[in-house]
């Protein structure tokens, strides 16, 4: 009788210990799984925020392009009104427009403005000033483009015009100078052609 009571007591004790063990295991699982109450990692696709890439078309770029566009229209009005100096000043305004840093359009627009500026200056008989604008445009170029090729084209026109002025000269130095200017003009045109061909091949996806 005594041994039976003892066995029952041990059984009850064992069951109680098992219950406590289950509770302790649950507590352990809670401690290891809660991660200090920090929010669990959200499901993928919920928190990913598309960044605002710096190379995206934004309001700053549109404002700069709009200003450049307005300066060109202003220059056209001045030209149509017979005021080339004011037209040149208006085109210089394009060069003063502040574009977003690193915007490729800035280089293209400035190169095109310098080409126009050089043509306007050349038309006004300021060949050296026109060549200075071309040199400045080529110096600022960081890549080949159709606008850079156009700068070389205008450079060839300037050199051609300078050589034409010397065509009627009788002095041997002027003849030599005219010949050299023509040679440089051909080099400039060839450079423009080469750039255009390379870019066209690149755009067409050909090596």
């Amino acid at each position, binding site marked *: 009788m005594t041994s039976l009571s003892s066995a029952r007591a*041990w059984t009850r004790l064992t069951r109680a210990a098992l219950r406590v063990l289950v509770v302790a295991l649950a507590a352990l699982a809670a401690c290891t799984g809660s991660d200090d109450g920090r929010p669990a990692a959200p499901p993928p696709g919920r928190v990913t925020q598309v*960044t605002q890439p710096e190379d995206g078309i934004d309001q700053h770029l549109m404002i700069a392009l709009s200003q450049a566009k307005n300066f060109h229209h202003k220059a056209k009005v001045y030209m149509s009104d017979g005021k080339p100096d004011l037209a040149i000043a208006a085109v210089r305004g394009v060069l003063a427009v502040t574009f977003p840093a690193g915007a490729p359009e800035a280089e293209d627009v400035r190169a095109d403005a310098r080409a126009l500026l050089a043509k306007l200056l050349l038309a006004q008989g300021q060949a050296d000033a026109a060549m200075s604008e071309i040199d400045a445009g080529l110096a600022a170029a960081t890549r080949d483009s159709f606008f850079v090729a156009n700068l070389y084209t205008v450079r060839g026109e300037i050199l051609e015009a300078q050589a034409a002025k010397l065509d009627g000269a009788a002095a041997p130095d002027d003849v030599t100078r005219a010949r050299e200017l023509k040679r440089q003009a051909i080099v400039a045109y060839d450079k423009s052609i080469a750039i255009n061909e390379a870019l066209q091949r690149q755009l067409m996806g050909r090596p």
Partner: protein
Amino acid sequence: MRPDDPTDLPPDDDAVPAPDAPADASERARAKAFAELIDKVVAGRPPAAVPSEQQELLEVATALRASVRPVELGASRRSAIVESALAAAIDRRAGGHGRVSASLPVVPIGRAAARRGARTPWLIAATTSLVAAAALTLWLRDRGAPRAAPPAPATAAAAPLPLELRSRPADPLVGAIPAERAGAALDRIDTIYADRLDGFRARTMSGGLR
């Protein structure tokens, strides 16, 4: 013995009474003494000496009792027999001759089971204590550790912007500039502006730009 018995046998203690004859006092006394003798033998307390005629009867009685009621061994006796058989088997495998080796500790079966039963609650209690200690340690460690800032949303761009929404060179848009169009910068800036305005509007409408 009846007086009118036709056999007329002399009174003899060894004489077998007739089956239907009523038992007399001496027969009852002898039966009672033999019953007590059987009880003593069954109880394991046989007398030191037993008359030969009673010895034979006693053997017959023992055989009869064993035939009608199989002997059941007690639990302790059963365990002892099994343990001795196991010990003998172990000893034989160890090269002995059927006797229990003194070097092999033989734990009685009943005692081993009882020991296991007694150990179970303590084993469970020890395991519970270890688990509780581990949980407490983790809890205290997490409380002591500095709280890390919640993870920031992933800021990596999922995909690059489409080309038409990006600031990019105007070469594909403008194309090669012929010499006679070298000064037509106004037309080109108009084209560039219109194209970029389309991209800007598309980006604004899609919610990618605030």
